């Protein structure tokens, strides 16, 4: 997560005030380390809390005023709230704070941030430093916690371009768990207020992918998204969630040969088509073309849905800004077919015989029918001649034999 130094200032100020008064309670750090190991002292002194001069009692506030030593075996959790009150408030709403309602142990500050050794998120040694955060979350989410989608789903993140950028390039701005899920205020995806909910996800991805968010919101999908239509695809419907990969990666959900499958999940769905008045059989009619057939065989040079329709800012053909608006078709087709003229627009793509109103576009259908009848007739005649010939020879063989 990104460092926000401004937030620390009030805390630091409080710490300074505390440090003036701490000797008043009568105990000193020396008293603690008559019993406690030196390693704890070392941890604290290398931590941010040690750096700003916090003493044991600043966190273990239930030991204040205690005269009897050794003190009780079990102490209260560290009093993080006395300085980090706003973060604790965020945490209290989170699924981590409410884990007990699901029969799991609550996740406390120290589970993620560490205890005595706590360091700021900007410190490369911190457990919540961007490069280290995935491992920190995985401590529980791989192994201990079962999610509805299974642990494999969590592990998929390690294949993603986001994780690879963290791991290989040390790119700290690349999305880690907290960029998408939040940090202290993590909510379940089912919660409409969650950063990963359908309602919020476009803006969550848009934190980094600003231009794409803008393009998406201008396109036909984005306009419906703003209207709150539930079936409209959001980022994760096409790009998936944890295993997001660049479109050039053959394992990506939006790899050239897979795009048609992704789009037709909705565009060939009868129920969705009926509800929103979409044309179906897009997959079939695309597959029948050379583009579609070649794509299904794994050819990545041929046009897929996105090549003609665009991707984030897909627009209907009636929109003059659309790549498939009749006026723009020569330019769109011309990207692959240099010198494409307006004749490219004189015909229907995704042709279904019963959807064609213009008579001349029916000719191809008629030609197809003629050929089918011709083939059936000729082959029938062949078979008739063969059957007659074979029959004659067999009968003759019998009568002579």
């Amino acid at each position, binding site marked *: 997560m990104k460092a926000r130094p401004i937030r620390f200032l009030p805390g630091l100020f409080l710490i300074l005030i505390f440090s003036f008064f701490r000797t008043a309670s009568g105990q000193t750090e020396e008293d603690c380390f008559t019993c406690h190991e030196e390693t704890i002292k070392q941890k604290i002194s290398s931590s941010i809390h040690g750096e700003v001069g916090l003493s044991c009692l600043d966190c273990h506030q239930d030991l204040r005023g205690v005269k009897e030593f050794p003190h009780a075996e079990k102490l209260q959790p560290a009093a993080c709230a006395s300085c980090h009150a706003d973060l604790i408030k965020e945490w209290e709403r989170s699924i981590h704070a409410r884990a007990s309602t699901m029969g799991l142990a609550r996740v406390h500050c120290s589970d993620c941030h560490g205890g005595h050794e706590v360091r700021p998120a900007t410190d490369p040694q911190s457990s919540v430093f961007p490069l280290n955060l995935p491992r920190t979350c995985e401590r529980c989410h791989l192994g201990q916690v079962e999610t509805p989608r299974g642990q494999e789903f969590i592990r998929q993140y390690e294949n993603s371009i986001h994780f690879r950028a963290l791991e290989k390039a040390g790119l700290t701005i690349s999305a880690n768990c907290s960029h998408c899920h939040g940090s202290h205020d993590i909510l379940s995806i089912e919660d409409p207020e969650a950063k990963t909910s359908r309602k919020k996800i476009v803006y969550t991805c848009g934190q980094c992918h600003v231009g794409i968010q803008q393009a998406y919101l201008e396109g036909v999908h984005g306009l419906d998204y703003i209207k709150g239509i539930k079936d409209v695809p959001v980022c994760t419907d096409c790009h998936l969630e944890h295993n997001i990969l660049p479109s050039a990666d053959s394992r990506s959900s939006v790899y050239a040969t897979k795009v048609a499958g992704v789009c037709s999940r909705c565009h060939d769905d009868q129920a969705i088509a009926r509800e929103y008045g979409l044309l179906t059989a897009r997959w079939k009619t695309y597959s029948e073309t050379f583009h579609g057939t070649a794509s299904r065989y794994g050819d990545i040079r041929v046009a897929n849905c996105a090549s003609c329709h665009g991707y984030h800012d897909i627009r209907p053909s009636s929109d003059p800004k659309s790549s498939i608006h009749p006026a723009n078709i020569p330019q769109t087709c011309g990207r692959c077919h*240099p010198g494409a003229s307006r004749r*490219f627009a004189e015909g*229907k793509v995704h042709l279904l015989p019963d959807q064609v109103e213009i008579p001349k576009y029916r000719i*191809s259908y008629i030609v197809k029918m003629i050929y089918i009848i011709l083939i059936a007739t000729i082959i029938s005649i062949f078979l008739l001649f063969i059957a007659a010939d074979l029959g004659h020879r067999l009968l003759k063989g019998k009568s002579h034999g």
Partner: protein
Amino acid sequence: MDKSPSLVDKSPFIDDEEIFIRMNLTERIQHFILIITFFSLILTGLPLFFYEFKFFRWLIPSGQVFYIRGLIHRVAAVLMIANLIWHLLYTAFHPRGRSNFKEMLPRVKDFRDAFEQLMYNLGLTRFLYRRGLGRNFFDRHPYWLFKNPPLYGRYNFIEKFEYWSLGWGSFIMIFTGFFMWQVELSLRLFPLWVHDIFIIIHGYEAILAFLAIIIWHMYNVHFNPENFPMSRVWLNGKITGRELRLLHPLEYQKIAELRRLEAEKVNQPGQPASASHNQAK
């Protein structure tokens, strides 16, 4: 083969064991190139038509293989066209090519032959006659009994049909295929819907050609009990006098007649003897 009736009398001028050349080396090479290019084209073209077919998905497992598929398809097409041009030149300028072409020309007789062969094989009218049905009619018109199969010349109706189908099919495939190859040119000349028709024709014509070859041609030269397991003409080009007499009786008679005339000339004094006529067939 022994079961086939001899339809014409044995000529004293043609020995049953004599070897005639039915396909010379040039024709055999042309036929061989045609086989190779035809099946290369089929194998690299049909996957586009039957893209759901498991075998083709196995054959073309990746985009790279798909690209090579297209390359092979175009190379085979160019080879086939070259072969066709060679054949056209051979037909136009070589005496034997010209003679074959004349023999290959379709005639009314071929349509009658097809009908008579079918009726002969079915034997329906002979069956009725034996049952005593329509005796009066059949006694007056014995033609309709189809007692004998038709007599064929150098090329029968089956071979002519195959030859001219190949010619017509090649023309269609080359024309449509050219514009599918040069798609930018095609779409400068024609609207998209016309280009779509080229694609449809190219596909369905290919299916027709493929079915015609594997059903019709394969039956006639391989699985037909007369030739089973295979006629060897396409390999050695040879046919015996006996085969000539049984399968191409009119051609047999023609050669026999020529030789008879030659023999008469030889018997007349003052006339020089001419060379062997084995090359005529």
